[in-house]
């Protein structure tokens, strides 16, 4: 018999393995270690611009689509008829008009405002601190302004979000209160920012220009005129360019007060909605045929006919954001708008100044080679206002102004109602809040017409 006996001694190492659970993210950092010095403060501020890029294009496009300058390419001839809160129908179903991405930008601005303010002068130069804070206040103002004109009043959040429940109970503010918040932020930015013009970063002139627009929307005509004048008066910094197309074929032209820059590595995606298939787009929307005819009319559009391009199918596409590599800027504040704001304010102010209003209007018409508006003895203030309204339509054609312009003057039932009876109901003069935002927020009430 064979017998094996083995003697074995085993020693097992008792090594703690728990260390391997402490994995560290490689492309992210935690909340605690952001915005600690000048460099990180700038990085976070740049993140706010990135956030504004994220909402602004969609918001501008949505405003174009809901109005009568642009129509769906599948159903030309209709003012966009199908906008519903669920996103069924022709509108971008996932983000509405950029509601949630706007709040993402606001949260980023809130972080910069609260954390940069707390940094001492050892880690950040006082001038940089003032500038970064001022820019963040301006961007927050811009975002709340756009939210207000799009949806009506929105919840006003001014603290950075650290917990998902900290804003519970904050309901929608009124539109008036939303605009008060915008003004407060603009006032703060006004004191913090310098007058050095950088056309794709906020400065004091961007604040003046947005204030002029805010005062126009809130009916403070004197202030609107005052702030538009502050921009126009800086004739070395700001000049209308000629021909008209120069402002969008070159980047950061002298006409630009504030534009959002894009590049081939940080693309502006708006061209994909507007360009034809052969140019790499989807041509979701085309220029409304009637409006195209007006732009082509030398007595109306003049040089602004360059904004549209005839396709082989007979339809027209907008060309303002036509850089196929995604490098087109988005125009937020432009000098010509300031002239038209001042013209309108001058007509509407307590002691109307039609003469100077018409001079402002004609400055814009002349630039585009359109014959001047000539007042006759029978010309009324309303005639001038209508001329300004039309001029705004041509001049700011695809920059998302038309819908808000008609709504703020109370004329949406007249102007849009003829095309789509839904607009007879003033409840429809705001966008529906996206369905996904409503279900996720018990404090958020839908606009009445969309309930």
């Amino acid at each position: 018999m064979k017998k094996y006996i083995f003697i074995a001694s085993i020693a097992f190492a008792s090594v703690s393995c728990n260390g391997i659970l402490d994995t560290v993210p490689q492309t992210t950092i935690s909340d605690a270690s952001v915005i600690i010095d000048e460099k990180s403060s700038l990085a976070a501020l740049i993140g706010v611009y990135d956030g504004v890029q994220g909402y602004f294009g969609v918001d501008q496009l949505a405003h174009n689509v809901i109005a009568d300058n642009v129509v769906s390419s599948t159903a030309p001839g209709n003012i966009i008829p199908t906008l519903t809160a669920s996103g069924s129908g022709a509108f971008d179903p996932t983000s509405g008009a950029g509601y949630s991405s706007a709040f993402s930008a606001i949260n980023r601005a809130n972080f910069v405002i609260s954390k940069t303010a707390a940094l001492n002068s050892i880690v950040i130069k006082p001038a940089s601190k003032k500038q970064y804070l001022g820019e963040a206040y301006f961007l927050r103002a811009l975002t709340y302004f756009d939210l207000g004109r799009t949806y009506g009043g929105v919840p006003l959040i001014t603290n950075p979000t650290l917990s998902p429940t900290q804003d519970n109970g904050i309901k929608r503010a009124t539109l008036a209160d939303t605009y008060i918040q915008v003004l407060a932020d603009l006032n703060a930015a006004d004191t913090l920012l310098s007058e050095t013009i950088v056309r794709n970063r906020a400065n004091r002139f961007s604040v003046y220009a947005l204030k002029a627009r805010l005062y126009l929307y809130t009916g403070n005509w004197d202030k609107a005129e005052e702030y538009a004048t502050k921009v126009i008066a800086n004739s070395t910094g700001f000049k209308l360019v000629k021909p008209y197309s120069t402002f969008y074929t070159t980047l950061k032209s002298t006409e630009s007060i504030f534009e959002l820059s894009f590049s081939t590595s940080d693309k502006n995606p708006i061209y994909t909605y507007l360009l034809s298939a052969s140019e790499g787009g989807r041509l979701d929307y085309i220029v409304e045929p009637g409006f195209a005819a007006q732009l082509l009319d030398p007595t109306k559009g003049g040089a602004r006919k360059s904004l549209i391009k005839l396709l082989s199918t007979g339809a027209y596409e907008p060309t303002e954001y036509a850089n196929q590599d995604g490098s087109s800027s988005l125009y937020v504040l432009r000098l010509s708008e300031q002239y038209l704001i001042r013209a309108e304010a001058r007509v509407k102010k307590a002691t109307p100044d039609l003469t100077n209003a018409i001079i402002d209007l004609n400055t814009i018409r002349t630039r585009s080679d359109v014959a001047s508006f000539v007042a006759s003895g029978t010309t009324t203030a309303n005639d001038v206002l209508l001329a300004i309204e039309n001029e705004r339509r041509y001049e700011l054609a695809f920059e998302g102004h038309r819908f808000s312009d008609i709504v703020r003057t109370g004329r949406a039932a007249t102007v849009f109602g003829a095309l789509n009876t839904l607009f007879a109901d003033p409840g429809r003069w705001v966008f529906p809040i996206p369905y996904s935002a409503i279900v996720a927020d018990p404090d958020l009430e839908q606009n009445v017409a969309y309930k």
Partner: protein
Amino acid sequence: MAKLPFIFGNGKTFPTFLVCKTGILFLFAVFTTLSVFAQQIELKGKVFEESSKLTVIGATIRVKGQKTGTTSDTNGNFVLKVKSLPATLDVSTVGFKTQEIDVYEADPVTIYLTEDLNRLNEVVVVGYQQTKKNALASAITTVSSDDLAKANYTTISEKLQGQVPGLLVSNSSGVPGTQVLVRLRGATSINAGNDPLYVVDGVFINSESLQSHGLGGQVSNPLSDLSTDDIESVSVLKDANATAMYGSRGANGVILITTKRGAKNGKTKVQFQAEYGVAKTGDLWKLTTGPEHAQIVNDCWINDGKTYATRPFRPTTEVITGYAAYGNPADQKTYDRQDEVFRTAQLQKYNLSVSGGDAKTNFYLGGEYQKQQATLKLENFDRYSFQLNLDHSITKQIKIGTSNSLSKVDRQVVAVGDGPAGLFQAALHTPTFYPIYNADGTYNKPVAFDNPEAILNNSDDHAYSLRSVNNVYLKWDIVKGLSFKSSWSNDYNSYHEKTYWNTFLINGQPNGQATDILTAKQTLIEEQVLNYNLSLAKESDLAFFLGNSAQTTTIEKESLTGTVFPSNQFKRIASAAVQTASSTGTSSALISYFAGGNFSYRNRYSIDANIRYDGSSRIGVNNQWGYFPSVGTAWNISNESFIPKTDVVTNLKLKASLGYSGNQSINDFSSLGLWSGGSNYDGVAGISPSQLGNPNLKWETTRQWNVGLTGELLKERLSFDVNYYDKYTSDLLLDDPVPAKTGYSSVTKNIGEISNRGIEVALNSVNIKTKHFEWKTNFSISHNVNNVEKLNTPITSSYQTYQVQQGFPLYSMWVYKYLGVNSQTGDAIYQDVNKDGKITVADKQIVGNAWPIVEGSLKNTFSYIGFDLDINIYYKYGNKIYNYTSSFLESGGTRGVTRSILESSMNYWKKPGDTNVLPRPKSTVNADGGFNYDQQSSRYIEDGSYLRLRDITVGYNFPKRALAHLHISATRLYVTATNLYTLTKYSGPDPEVNVGAGDSRALVQGMDFGTPPQPKSVSIGVNITL
């Protein structure tokens, strides 16, 4: 025997006697050979199998009362020495009844073993556990390679379809090597993944696609890296008692794949297989002719209230500013694009394996080359795979071994659907009236989609995967019954995607674009298990196991993009004017301790209990460790003395189990509040908050109980396995939507509960068995009810047509309920749920889901002398399909000239009184707020039930005698046909399509959108064994 010196660990309740990656293993073993006794009488003999009279190799022959023994050699012969005569020999081997033979003289003995059809006393190894089969209390289905589908399906998951009750397998596309939806006993999670855990030879392998580059709903399947021919068996662990051993990852079931190993003391076996086949796509979508398209679009134009003068299809001479003219309807021609993108596809497959072994070493060496085309052009799948398995006994107690599979898959790919660059979608969605080429011979690209011919001629899109799954182990039988196994594994998986779009393609506009993305994922695992099996008196057994495992997973990704190429001749990024690069990575780790025990008493009653303790880096710091316990019990009723031993009931076992398993398939670092880079502006690097933190994040836990009855009746001619289960998942790891005002969209939280309850039945019968003819039937049917028991906020899918809602199953379709057409106005009627007279989002409701009520298979196998016939039928009943293709294309002209229109759309309302028609073409809103052709309508939700004759295989085995002089031991010729016939009411080309299956977290399942249908194929092959 000496006691084992355990050194107990540090604070954890389990002895950390084992080692992790960072640790060091000290193992000293000294073997000493002591004494040798002389023995006197030599006995010779030979072992045969009773029925076939073939020799039995490797049978163990022992002399009763002596410690000595031997095994039979390759010819069945054995020699051993006995002290004295008479002696009693005890002859045993796996699968045969043990024989006792008394030997009185030293003459050669002949021993006949009879097959043990009742293999319940076999020791089975399932995961970490070694127990006798009849002591198992778990619901486990094992499919051997012989029972896997005979047809050549590319991935193992496809081969399992219908074979395992409770395992829902649904192919998603007709392209080989792409995603397959696999759900075991329903779905337990919303955001943390629903794919089972796959384990190949002890290695937890990656089953998540590494594909980065979007291919329009098509995702590669990492399981297709594995050759199906090297697989010996697949065990599917279903209940908690079986899956609790896999702790935090067991909740979706575990699929254990065992590859082939050589037989010890066997003759070296060489097997060669060659197969060639062709495949064709059946019917495609039926589109309108050009004139029909024009007619319906013009009708829609008028119904929208626009003027006749501006209608799109009018003579091109009628020019009106801004209003395109496409010519009169009658002048439109019709161009077919669909047939252009499909082809007769070819399959070639060659497989060579060599296996065998001697007394100490056994090996398996397999190699495969498979070249498979999809019927959709530009899609090719080439797999080269290699398998090497080796086991070697260093001593009688110490065995080492290794399993290795190495494979390379070269794919040519193309985007298929869900996007303008998708080949199939471009062919299907471009209106038929547009010519394919312009008059000057250039590609006509009239709508958002690429020109399909341009894709066919210019696409340059490839993906290369490299996979290495390796395991080495050392098994030490310390003393009888006690063994220790140390196992070290690696799963390396890389996926390299190279794409170039020239200027003829949308993505190449305006000056060409190329991307090059390399993703590599590696998992390293160590695992140490101690097993103790003890046979007690009175046929009672006791088994324990105790173990530890640690693993780390890292993912590294590098991507390069080049734009602005000098011309279409330059394709590599080096030539591009603008080059951008990105590099990123992530990692996770998991540490586990586990233990279990099984006690079976008199082969009648058994009870087992398992527990696993897991720590994961993905889980919040406050809850990083979790326990997953389970218990199970089984009662072998047929072994009770009060049950008479009859041929009617051979075996009957009742089993029950209860346990907990977990799920942690969330993103790495989900619990942390994070800021990310990449939020750049104007060339300056920016950062932004990207994730809200939740330090309290913990495991998703699934509680499951199972009761089952297994039995064999009528002399084992009929066997059955019936299980009822109840799974309840709580603390769902959910991306819970947060108010938009916070600036975030969601936070990962433990909220929500999901249940799955169901029943599974498998029936196997031998209907006829004569000397020459055999007919066997396998039938399976399973039923599962999935329900979201608790959810705070409904979650809407990205398509806006699926919603997760409390009280409804996952994959529920959320739309306006279409009630038909108002026969007076021709407008669509939708159900006004809240009765406010308006159709608004509040009227959307859940009208169906993608789950079948029942699904299963019926398989019949016949054999007659050398012929065999295998007929496999798969069925699914009661599931709904969201026909997204028809929601786009059965559009009643509302999409004008931008998309094609289905022929079925022509049956629309034309005059009052028309019934059984589609609504009148009209894109504008109706008075009630509804739209005639709203995409989110239940009209596009169809019954997806089907019964498919999935495959038929006819084989012929040449008689052994005819082959003997060629030194060939077996030759089989076979013909296989797949997808021969489908019985379904579904209107699309294929009811087995699904655009969402690629992502195990996808909320959209059962949606047909631009996925190529499955082809019909026929192939012939030969199998030669030397």
